[in-house]
């Protein structure tokens, strides 16, 4: 069985978000990056299948030089092989272009399963997974909270509102865009990290995947005009002072509400 896991390297969850002077995105130069949280759950789900049956887990990611680190981490956790699309011409791609690149990798790899995270912690577009499924002509499910293989079928539980779950059956090959909390993500062991250095990591370009015309700013079908700090409307009244002062202020308010 072959599982393709698509990862994105995103700004660390607690990174300072300084907006570029042209407002087009945040400054990425001096912040830390990490594997997108949703994608770590996707990788873990693939590794759990590999724990139980023979499977090759291939991780793929699109990004600049720093993305190699994310792929080595994934290999350290137990993935077998990595594909890094490191190509400046990809800069400015929208989700659909990213999906086209990943689908090109998918067509080369012919995986039985493709796992992605539901969305990325930076853009929150939640698009690449279902788009890759469409391009690879596979059935898919999003917001997956549990997945179990039953022969040539996969039973997935999708998260609905209020904690309800929709149970669907997908034929293989299929794609899952997983939700956080589907499992508990493992740490890479020291042994795993050492072994990762020797595992194959191939660097590819858009051209050798045959998608050079379909990517980059020129091909993008959306344009982010600007990003900005949300205008504050009223917002909270902020209490200042020491913890004891503040506690007194809060208690006074709670009393006023008649709740003490």
């Amino acid at each position, binding site marked *: 069985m072959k599982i393709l896991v698509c990862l994105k390297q995103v*700004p660390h969850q607690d990174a300072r*978000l300084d*907006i570029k002077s042209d407002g087009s995105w*945040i400054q990425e130069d001096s912040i830390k990056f990490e594997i997108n949280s949703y994608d770590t759950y996707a990788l873990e789900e693939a590794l759990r299948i590999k724990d139980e049956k023979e499977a090759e887990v291939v991780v793929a990611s699109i990004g600049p030089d720093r993305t190699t680190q994310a792929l080595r981490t994934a290999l350290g956790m137990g993935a077998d092989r990595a594909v890094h699309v490191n190509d400046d011409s990809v800069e400015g791609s*929208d*989700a*659909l272009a990213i*999906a086209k690149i990943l689908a090109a990798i998918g067509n080369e790899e012919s995986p039985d399963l493709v796992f992605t995270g539901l969305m990325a912690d930076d853009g*929150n*577009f*939640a*698009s*690449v*997974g*279902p*788009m890759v499924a*469409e*391009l690879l002509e596979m*059935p*898919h*499910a999003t*917001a997956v909270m549990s997945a179990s293989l039953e022969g040539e079928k996969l039973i997935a539980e*999708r998260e*609905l*509102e*209020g*904690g*309800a779950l*929709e*149970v*669907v059956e*997908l*034929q293989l090959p*299929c794609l899952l865009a997983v939700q*956080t909390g589907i499992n508990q993500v493992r740490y890479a062991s020291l042994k795993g990290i050492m072994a990762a250095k020797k595992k194959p990591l191939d660097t590819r370009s858009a051209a050798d995947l045959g998608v050079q015309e379909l990517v980059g700013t020129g091909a*993008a*079908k*959306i*344009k*982010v*005009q*600007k*990003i*900005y*700090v*949300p205008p504050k*409307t009223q917002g*909270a009244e*902020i209490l200042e002072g020491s*913890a004891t002062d*503040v*506690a*007194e202020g*809060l*208690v006074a*308010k*709670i009393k006023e*509400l008649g*709740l*003490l």
Partner: protein
Amino acid sequence: MGNILIVAEMQNGSIRESSYELASFAQKIADPSQVRSLVIGESVTEEANAFSTKGGGEVTVVDNAAVSNYSAEAYRQAILAVIQETNASTILLSNTPSGWDVAPRLAAALDAAFIPDCFDIDQVDEKLVFLRRVFNGKLDARVEAVADIVVATMQPGATAPYEGTTTGTVSSLEVSFNEQKSRFLETKVAESKGVDLSKAEIIVSGGRGVGDPEKFPETIQPLADALGGAMGASRPVVDAGWLPHEYQVGSSGQIVTPKLYVACGISGAIQHLVGMKGSNFIIAINKDGDAPIFEIADLGVVGDLFEVVPALTDAVKSAKS
């Protein structure tokens, strides 16, 4: 600008409120004559008729047992057929579990622009600009489509449902559904375990900022107890396995409307806000002054919750004794 197609969604036999919100957006940005709608499901004709007079405009109905439950493949096929039939260049869905599941596939199938989870649409010089949030709610973004067709999803609750009247006809489209590679099996309703937070009058919730599972019984629970309330949590806490799902407040957990909600170490991502914004009074404690939670809180403290919360617990106990 060409025709707009609203993809309405059924829930428990009626068209959901979020579909009427799509009608508000559509009627705001387009001429009523350009507004089209699709109502898809089984035995939906009556609802479709109502929708055509309440913002839906010209409604196409796909009424078929094959679509009695949501299925990405069947919905995709029906929606693509209607997009073609209505010559729509803007397609709107709600960002619900069905919407976010099928909409990106539609965009890929049409090689269209895709702009999801928007909270508003502006019109600037004949162009549509979509407003959405990025970085889990910390920043806003203005996004435009640079393609002939745009598929967009709107956040449920982002605007009021349409309250006007519209005229429109309702016609039926027969779709011969292809064989599918996926099928709906069942819906599992969430079991209610533990405290029913939706009934609690006071809730003290902890988020990722609490940092450690032990700190919930050590720091958060004592404040909840002192106030005579219940403890809750945001999603990351449950994802990390620190607390079970029944503590989760948010769109995929419980929606709560207590008299008092105290959010400790919670940044205020949209999915959490959806769960508690109906609270009567909100107090937020977070060391990050830019956290989105301070925008909807009534009273806030920018500080270390490990100093503030124990101080507050003591102060509450003193006040009560």
